[in-house]
């Protein structure tokens, strides 16, 4: 059994996910962690390092005075020869040289820094500190120059660098709040994987393999775009890290959970090979030679400041890191399997016996005897709703005879509040058919895992029918006739050299059509109405492969382009687009951003002025006290109190202003991302870069032109 080689207790709390290990003087490893009240602590093992006992720690504190949102360490400036500490807050990024107690740079980052990763990206030669903020990604070199910038779909929550395509250069993995993992080859998106919740952590394992964690308690491993395995727990994964704990040459995925558990899972199967428990939630997992004896340890920190280091298990453990012997467990597992098979066999035997008397009796119904040819049928359709019910997708589940459906459990991710939806009719409403309204909030294909509990009215034991149906990506759009009056003004036009039949195939696969659309020759058009907001969507196919998509929803247009492109295997696609209403809104947002910036400056000036006044009042008050002029002193202190109140009020205003600013900036970044999503491949990257340049030069007209036609030059 693997036991910690050292444990130590830091006397402060550690904020989740904010732990890093660095050699800030080039030799001694130091554990840096963010703690409450905007402080970073650095604990290094003292002279006694290397002893079997807990390393004695020297602890130093660094004041940031702002809520810390991310933290990492590593080599930012190769010339220095030692690691730098990087601390991100909602507004700033600090690169800090711990050894010399000096700043490498201190940059304002308006999009905030939710996640940070340090390393080399693509062909950029110098190491970059890449931060992910509100829809934006930014990479800084050791002098604070931003050499990398791009946008992504939503707030970034996790980042990792990994050689995704095996070309020897790192790609950037970005996990965001829109449930997507995106892979950036520098600023070009090369892959996108849809997950089922916010991606809270990413960790490269080796080669193109990486681990991920979601906010709903899922952890798993991807190899390129294919998911190897995943498991879901009721606890939350706080931190993941790849580490070879059993010395077999392959990294395991180590997960630190919110209930204080740490487990190591095989990268191939997800099987647990080691676990340990802490008294409180895990804050972070790092690796390094903390004892300075030449061996790398896995170091786990809990939020209460408990730190344990584990050495990889040696040869003599034969990969057996757990308490009990493998053979014992194997025997138990096999016996259990045998028992299950015997049970199943007995089930069939009993069933065969029961079949002999085919007469259905009252008592049999209770025992759950149903006709053997009972089948479960499912149908998906669009329901336009009524006065009492809004429009929805309807899943109709029915049996083929007089058996009733007692309850239906649907497990699906991302479309219900939890992971499941249950329909349980009351006794008087039981029937052989159950209609389940579904309203997927996003346009993604969803697998519905249906479990129907079938029996008779008074049964206590039921049969469970299990089946899986896929909900098409654009199921929330109902086919409708072309309505010229409400035809959307916005459109996307592009040319695809594809046969119309292939596009019809795509239509059948992606929409819930009453009957499969007939093979039509171009030109033709199909119109849909959104069940969410009754918005119109028209897809026109003209001769010559010209396709026009009209909708006022720019996201929907982007989704359709992306879906078509992946179905038809299109690599590069340039489009012409116009979204007058959306662009007008964006223009307003841009104006607001400027306003907010101005307000911010004014408030900062006010604050500086106030602090001057405070200084003078304080001196006056103290003078008065020394002179024994109590009345005057009291007056000054009352003044001070008022000033303090003013400052607090102003602070609140500043906060509001800042939030507003952040929201607006997010909207701008999202707009750029959306403009990008209307294109595929190279044109997509070009649009994003061009938009950025336009915003930098504050040229709004240029920005809109780029969004429309895809390039800056006409």
């Amino acid at each position, binding site marked *: 059994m693997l036991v910690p080689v050292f444990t130590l207790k830091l006397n402060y*709390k550690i904020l989740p996910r904010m732990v890093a290990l660095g050699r800030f003087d080039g030799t001694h490893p130091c554990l840096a962690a963010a703690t409450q*009240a905007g402080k970073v602590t650095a604990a290094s093992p003292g002279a006694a390092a290397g002893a079997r006992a807990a390393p004695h720690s020297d602890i130093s504190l660094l004041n940031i005075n702002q809520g810390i949102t991310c933290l990492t360490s590593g080599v930012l400036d190769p010339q220095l020869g030692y690691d730098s500490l990087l601390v991100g807050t909602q507004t700033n990024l600090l690169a800090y040289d711990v050894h010399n107690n000096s700043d490498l740079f201190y940059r304002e980052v308006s999009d905030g820094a939710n996640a940070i990763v340090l390393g080399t990206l693509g062909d950029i030669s110098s190491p970059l500190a890449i931060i992910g903020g509100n829809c934006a990604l930014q990479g800084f070199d050791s002098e604070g120059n931003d050499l990398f910038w791009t946008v992504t779909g939503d707030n970034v929550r996790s980042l990792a660098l990994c050689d995704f395509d095996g070309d020897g250069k790192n790609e950037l993995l970005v996990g965001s709040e829109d449930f997507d993992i995106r892979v950036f080859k520098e600023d070009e998106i090369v892959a996108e994987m849809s997950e089922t919740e916010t991606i809270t952590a990413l960790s490269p394992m080796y080669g193109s393999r990486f681990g991920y964690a979601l906010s709903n308690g899922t952890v798993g491993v991807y190899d390129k775009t294919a998911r190897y395995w995943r498991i879901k727990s009721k606890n939350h994964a706080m931190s993941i890290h790849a580490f070879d704990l059993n010395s077999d040459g392959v990294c395991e995925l180590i997960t630190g959970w919110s209930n204080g558990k740490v487990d190591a899972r095989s990268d191939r199967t997800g099987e647990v090979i080691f676990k340990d428990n802490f008294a409180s939630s895990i804050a972070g997992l790092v690796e390094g030679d903390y004892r300075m004896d030449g061996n790398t340890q896995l170091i786990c920190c809990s939020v209460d400041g408990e730190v344990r280091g584990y050495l990889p298990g040696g040869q003599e453990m034969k990969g057996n890191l757990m308490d009990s012997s493998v*053979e014992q467990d*194997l025997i138990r597992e096999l016996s259990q399997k045998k028992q299950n098979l015997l049970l199943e066999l007995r089930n069939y*035997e009993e069933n065969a016996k029961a079949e002999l008397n*085919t007469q*259905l009796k009252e008592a049999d119904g209770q025992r759950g005897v149903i006709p*053997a040819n009972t089948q479960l049928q499912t149908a998906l359709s669009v329901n336009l709703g009524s006065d009492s019910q809004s429009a929805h997708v309807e899943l109709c589940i029915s049996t083929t005879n007089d058996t009733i459906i007692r309850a239906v459990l649907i497990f699906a991710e991302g479309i219900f*509040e939890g992971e499941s939806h249950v329909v349980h009719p009351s006794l008087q409403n039981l029937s052989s058919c159950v209609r389940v309204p579904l309203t997927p909030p996003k346009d993604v294909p969803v697998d519905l895992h249906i479990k129907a509990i079938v029996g008779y009215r008074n049964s206590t034991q039921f049969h469970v029918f299990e089946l899986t149906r896929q909900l098409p990506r654009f199921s929330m759009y109902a086919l409708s006739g072309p309505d010229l009056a409400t035809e959307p003004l916005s459109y996307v036009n592009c040319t695809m050299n594809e046969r119309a039949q292939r596009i019809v195939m795509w239509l059948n696969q992606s929409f819930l059509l009453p009957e499969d659309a007939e093979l039509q020759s171009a030109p033709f058009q199909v119109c849909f109405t959104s069940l969410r907001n009754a918005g119109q969507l028209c897809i026109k196919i003209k001769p010559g492969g010209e396709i026009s998509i009209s909708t006022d929803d720019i996201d929907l247009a982007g989704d359709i382009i992306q879906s078509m492109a992946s179905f038809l295997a299109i690599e590069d696609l340039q489009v012409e687009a116009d979204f007058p209403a959306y662009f007008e809104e964006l223009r307003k947002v841009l104006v607001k951003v400027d306003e907010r910036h101005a307000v911010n400056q004014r408030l900062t000036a006010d604050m500086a002025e106030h602090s001057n006044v405070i200084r003078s009042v304080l001196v006056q008050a103290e003078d008065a006290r020394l002179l024994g002029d109590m009345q005057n002193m009291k007056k000054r202190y009352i003044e001070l109190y008022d000033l303090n109140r003013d400052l607090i009020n102003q602070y609140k205003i500043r906060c509001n202003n800042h939030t507003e600013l952040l929201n607006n900036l997010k909207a701008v970044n999202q707009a750029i991302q959306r403009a990008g999503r209307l294109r595929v491949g190279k044109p997509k990257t070009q649009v994003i870069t061009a938009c950025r340049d336009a915003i930098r030069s504050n040229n709004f007209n240029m920005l809109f032109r780029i969004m429309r036609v895809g390039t800056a030059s006409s």
Partner: protein
Amino acid sequence: MLKLLCTKFARKDYNIVGVTAQKTMRLLPASGRRATQKVVVGDQDGVITCFGIKKGEAVPVFKTLPGQKIARLELGGALNTPQEKIFVATGSEVKGFTKRGKQFLSFETNLTESIKAMHISGADLFLCASYIYNHYCDCKDQHYYLSGDKINDVLCLPVEKVNCITPVLACQDRVLRVLQGSDLLYEVEVSGPPTVLALNNGNGGDSGEEIVFGTSDGKVGLVQITGSSPVHKWEIGNEKKRGGILCIDSFDIVGDGVKELLIGRDDGMLEVYNFESADDPVLLSDHALSESIASIQGGCVGKDGYDEILACTYSGWLTGLTTEPIHREGGSGEELKLSQEMQSKISSLRSELESLQIKVLQEREKYQQASQSSTAMSSVPAFSVNDKFTLNKDDASYSLILEVQTAIDNVLVQSDVPIDLLDVDKNSAVVSFSSCDSEPNSNFVLATYRCQANTTRLELKVRSIEGQYGTLQAYVTPRIQPKTCQVHQYQIKPLSLHQRTHSIDHDRPMNTLMLKGQFSFAEIHSWVVFCLPEVPEKTPAGESITFYFQNTFLGTQLESTYRKGEGLFKSDNISTISILKDVLSKEATKRKINLNISYDINEDSVRYTLKLIHPKLEYQQLLAKKVHLIDALKELQVHEGNVDFLLPKYRSILEESDQLLEEYKKQPAHLERLYGMITDLFIDKFKFKGTNVKTKVPLLLEILDGCDQDGLIAFFEAAA
């Protein structure tokens, strides 16, 4: 030579049989030169399996054919000879087998119900069905007793020591009934519903009068049953909130010359207590198995010279916790042999599995084909679910425990009353609450528990509100083909937070509710069963009956006395009376019985109840405030580097922060529940006066936040 005290046990899984009931596994006494003992176990398929262990493998001695399920298995024989005859209770029959498996007795009793508990002493046989106790000698009926509540276990003090036959019944209504012949000698009140009895030290101690009992709420105690009255010796509480006790044994596993107490619980905890200091037991070691432990015994099974504890779990696993070290330092030859044994066992299992798999595939295909036929029927035998739905006194919530013989796939929980489902830390299942439609399908809770692989046991916590009653249903789907699902129902009663108690404080100011009408004793009893938990379903013998109850959350009490045509309910809590009045009149109307209801409201009782609740309220509010401050104080501590500048009051909060948080976490929503109950009290008080005070509730909540006892009482008295 000094023998090393060994408290570290290695686990060994020996064998698996069918689902087993409580107390159905015993070790046969060692015979001949061999020191290892054979294991005999009876399961719910009716099969008795007897096996020994050779080279780590189970070698069968005999196995009987399937039959009715076995409720108990005991060993017997002539007094003062080795007890090696095997007796099993199945249905209403007792069967006897020799240690070689030859049946020598088949005794069809005159009991109409199936046997629940059995004890054997020489030629005396003690049997219990649900409420009935019967004593046979040489299979001839001797004595008979009808208990007031369900009998869980039976025992007889050792005849050779006490010189008379003294049977003891463990009854659900929290008493041990000591009998003499067909008559009740006296009752021993214990703190929880006793589920199992055992002789202390295996022989009743020096006097032969000491028995150990275990309760369903996880307590263990020792009582001396003297000729005239009971003497309570010690009791082990259940601070760790572990499961109920299912089996008890005494065995010297440590080898210090004193027998340790071995305990198996229904949450899979196996505990060893020893008596090194004084007479009070001290927990020596514990071991967690994954499912409830139905039977336990100490002995020597696996290897000569190494004692071990053998446990039999619900799903039929026979697991040994042995003192034999599994991996010894050095001695590599031994280890090699060990692993060879293992390897051969594994390969034989694998080949067995393969052939089974083929067979199953064939059968599966047949089953699939049957679905084409229009006349064929598809039925699946019931799988067994071990369930328990009990009220916890400590936090006034119910715990629902579901245990299945194979892994659970998912459990759907549905309720037609508003309840809170709370998470239990040790569960690994992923919970998902589905949106509910209270109209028209009357669902207030729909939750799915998707279990991780190999979960056979699921525990849920349910918090109910008094006055809201209905049914909680659990649909259990195990991971086995063909997929089936079983529904189990649990009643949430109107006075769901009440618990039976032995006595109440008669000096409290009481409100009374009096019922008169044309109803029978059985009818009013059924209404009481409907309203209150822990009341036996059978109508009590005699003309009238009195039950005492305590509200586990507030500590208020209820006395109910009723007979044919008359019922009297007394409580210091007006809300309790109000709920009873509503439910009883509703039930009577349902049966078209004219009820004459009169009540007498005692104004003092409100003041009394408020005074009873207030300290709890104050404590909770203070706790909430303290917990609220912890984070801020900690931040100050980091900022300033030390806490010397803080007031002692705040310093103590910091010092105790861990305990405070722990306590706060333990009782979520405690304050809200208190608020809710005080509000109910307020509304109910005035409801009896005929005034509706719902509009004044916000005002009341304001006063509650202020937490001033006199103010609160004044408000209760002023508002009208």
